[in-house]
């Protein structure tokens, strides 16, 4: 899709009313050149250290779309993901009949950011947000949304689209220039609804890890192991703990008893059992979601946990089945700002070329690495500090880099 029809620059003075989807169908992501002032400040701060070819663009907020902006920035600075998305887009452009979907909208947005002449500025991810709202009514309202839910939805949606594309190619081999590169994995698409080997797309290659859920029946001692894939790990958190400790708890042995017994296939009955989660295959990009929004039964509602949970800039997973010493490096943090679950704001911290940047919708600032620790949370429940790390993005470094 080579959509060059550019609508003139639009300046959103206020939050736009809900625009009918027809009207925005061909609207590209607008560049808001009027907000160049903040950008030049960042350029000044970086000086001649401004990384070549890199673009630092703020994203306009269309009314409570900061959940979206903060995650998009984290994904944009997930370099292997960005590169593969841009590559996908470049290769797919020739296929004229590609329908607009979230993948093309995201690719279009990233392409637009990376091809800006200016190094800094503001872009309105209008088309992407419209598409998102069209696709999922959850995100249609102007309510405060959950950034983790959005990330989860987006990654699964991208995978669905890539899988469907691969299937279409398979069933219609005469399609001109099949997008070979769109699915880098083995092309065992589903045939007749019978799932063979699942397709491994470049999204999988970046984010997917495999957990092994081991359950040991305390009656017959049989160990049942079940593998499950994940795009992120959701961790329970405790006050004054570390990510290392939360990960340890995640894999610690849990006893299933009372009302939560395990159905043992061998005993053919409900039995007490011990369960533990191990990471069988660590992902290339490790996304850690801190469960800061907890349902409190007594209150009958969700509550935000502002606990102080420290996260190191380098991390190793020691609770894995193998390759225990893969080292990860933190490159992005989505931060929830606010004291409650139903309101607040999202911003993101991003590491790019050894500089840390702070993205708050339209604004982009440089911050010191040591400032990352101001987003750990509060050691006391009532604190003026309400900026808490919510989603952490780590990239594996070192030998076992599966960059394709």
């Amino acid at each position: 899709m080579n959509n060059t029809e550019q609508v003139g620059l639009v300046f959103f003075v206020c939050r736009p009313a809900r625009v009918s989807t027809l009207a925005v169908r061909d609207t590209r992501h607008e560049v808001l050149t009027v907000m160049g002032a903040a950008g030049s400040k960042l350029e000044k701060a970086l000086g001649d250290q401004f990384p070549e070819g890199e673009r630092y663009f703020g994203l306009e907020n269309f009314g409570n779309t900061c959940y979206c902006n903060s995650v998009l920035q984290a994904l944009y600075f997930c370099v292997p993901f960005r590169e593969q998305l841009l590559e996908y887009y470049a290769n797919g452009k020739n296929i004229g009949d590609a329908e607009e979907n979230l993948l093309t909208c995201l690719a279009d947005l990233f392409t637009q950011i990376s091809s800006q002449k200016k190094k800094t500025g503001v872009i309105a991810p209008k088309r992407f947000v419209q598409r998102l709202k069209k696709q999922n009514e959850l995100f249609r309202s102007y309510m405060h949304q959950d950034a983790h839910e959005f990330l989860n939805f987006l990654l699964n949606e991208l995978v669905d689209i890539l899988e469907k594309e691969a299937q279409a190619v398979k069933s219609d081999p005469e399609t001109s220039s099949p997008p070979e590169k769109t699915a880098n994995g083995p092309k065992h698409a589903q045939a007749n609804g019978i799932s063979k080997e699942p397709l491994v797309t470049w999204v999988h290659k970046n984010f997917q890890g495999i957990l092994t859920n081991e359950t040991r029946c305390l009656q017959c001692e049989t160990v049942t192991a079940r593998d499950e894939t994940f795009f992120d790990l959701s961790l329970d958190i405790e006050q004054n703990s570390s990510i290392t400790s939360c990960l340890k708890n995640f894999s610690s042995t849990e006893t299933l008893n009372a009302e939560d017994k395990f159905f043992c296939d061998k005993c053919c009955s409900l039995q007490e059992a011990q369960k533990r989660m191990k990471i069988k295959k660590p992902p290339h990009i490790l996304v850690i979601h801190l469960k800061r929004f907890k349902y409190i039964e007594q209150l009958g509602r969700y509550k935000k946990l502002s606990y102080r949970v420290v996260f190191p800039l380098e991390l190793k997973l020691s609770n894995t089945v193998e390759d225990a010493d893969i080292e990860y490096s933190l490159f992005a943090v989505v931060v929830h700002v606010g004291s409650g679950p139903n309101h607040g704001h999202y911003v993101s911290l991003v590491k790019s070329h050894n500089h840390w940047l702070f993205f708050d919708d339209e604004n982009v600032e440089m911050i010191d690495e040591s400032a990352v620790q101001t987003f750990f949370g509060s050691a006391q429940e009532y604190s003026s500090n309400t900026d808490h790390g919510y989603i952490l993005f780590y990239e594996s470094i070192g030998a076992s880099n599966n960059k394709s």
Partner: protein
Amino acid sequence: MISTSSTSANTQSPGLKTYFKTPEGRYKLHYEKTHPSGLLHYAHGKTVTQVSLANLKDKPAPSTPTAPTSGFSAGSGVRSAAARLLGGSNGSRALSFVGGNGGSKSISSSSRIGSLGASSSSNSMINTNFDGKGTYLIFNVGDAIFISDLNSQDKDPIKSIHFSNSNPVCHAFDQDAKDGHDLLIGLSSGDGVIILNIQDTLRKYLDRGHTVVDRCMSIAWVPGGDGAFVVAHADGNLYVYEKNKDGAGDSSFPVIKDQTQFSVAHARYSKSNPIARWHICQGSINGIAFSTDGVYLATVGRDGYLRVFDYLKEQLICGGKSYYGALLCCAWSMDAKYILTGGEDDLVQVWSMEDRKVVAWGEGHNSWVSGVAFDSYWSSPNSDGTGESVVYRFGSVGQDTQLLLWDLETDEIVVPLRRYPPGGSPTFSTGSQSSHWDSVIPVGTLQPAPSMRDVPKLSPVVAHRVHTEPLSGLVFTQESVLTVCREGHIKIWMRPGASESQSGNSETILSASLKEKPLFSSKIGSSAYRQ
């Protein structure tokens, strides 16, 4: 996703016990020390409280605390700076300090003094007569240094020194100084170093001169160094000063060519401070410690490496990397045979100087380890002096609010069969092939991070939650263990059997909800790491 149990209930109503049990007996909470709450400043929370001990045996240097406002200025040329000591009528003093270029920033001292004088707690500060004898606690909170009498029940400090424009972040007291009781104070701005007499008379302000430095991270007197001291900074540099030399000479140092390499540069003119610059690592130096004999200097930093230097020869002896993440603290055993480090991998690491490598990992903290120390006053209750084994007791505190005590029995450490070989370069090594254990690690090499299964593990003797806030340090004294949290609250835990009569505290358990687990498995595991 998959749920794990949460202990949120504990944090809602923190139940902190006023004692903890060890194999040798109970440690009881004796006193608590803190800063006057009325003095909370906006800067509070931005700095982490550290604590130093000062034992005053004789009369301090003849400086009168009632001295009128004295002026002090140091520096010349472009970066002149001035520090003034302002006498307050109520005995409290505010030290105004102006750094930066040409002292162009105005001093905001008047308002500061006003607020200090108006605070209700200022009265209590002058009630206790600071006679200069005894043991004192020196700790920094926000923009101030506080001094408390260790052996008094008073929660509030007896003296406070406030700073303008810069926060005190680290300090060190010279126990052995012949010419007065000198307290070094490093500042968050990095603008030079202040030497105070403990009576709070400014003795000297040492300007950084033309040297551009980052935030101070750690400061230490050189043992037996006759007034020499070192200051470690956030930019990976360590500067050497001599207190009797003037600051602000023409100390300039060449540009560091390779940030990743260790280098030492001496000032061209030996009359001015700083006299030398050690570039140690890329990123911050988070902690430094001299061996008691002053021969070795250990540093830990953002890059996760422990480095041990021969201080006089200015040479790297050995070192190595954390499991992952930055190292935050380090400490020597009295005999300089072992070094403890703690950091962002939640581990307490024990390094052997003899083997020049890690010999054990202490697992037990649920967050970053922020303070480590050997208990030099401790002797094993079973030690009869005949056995081969030497037992060391050490402690660690973490951001998990816990104090952990550990025993290290040297004959229990079974060396792993496999380990990483020494790397090639003196400051960075990447070797990963396995080699034989017996091979000697050459002097001047840094070890890469060991594999989890290769290192023997230690379990704590006791784990006790001592504060509600993350901890920042601990100190062992003859009678007690001191714990301090980041926000500036100090607890003094009396050793078992130590001055029972003094212990007026009832052993009230505030709440029984806290899990208290005395762990008696003090042996080093020897099975986990064999292949």
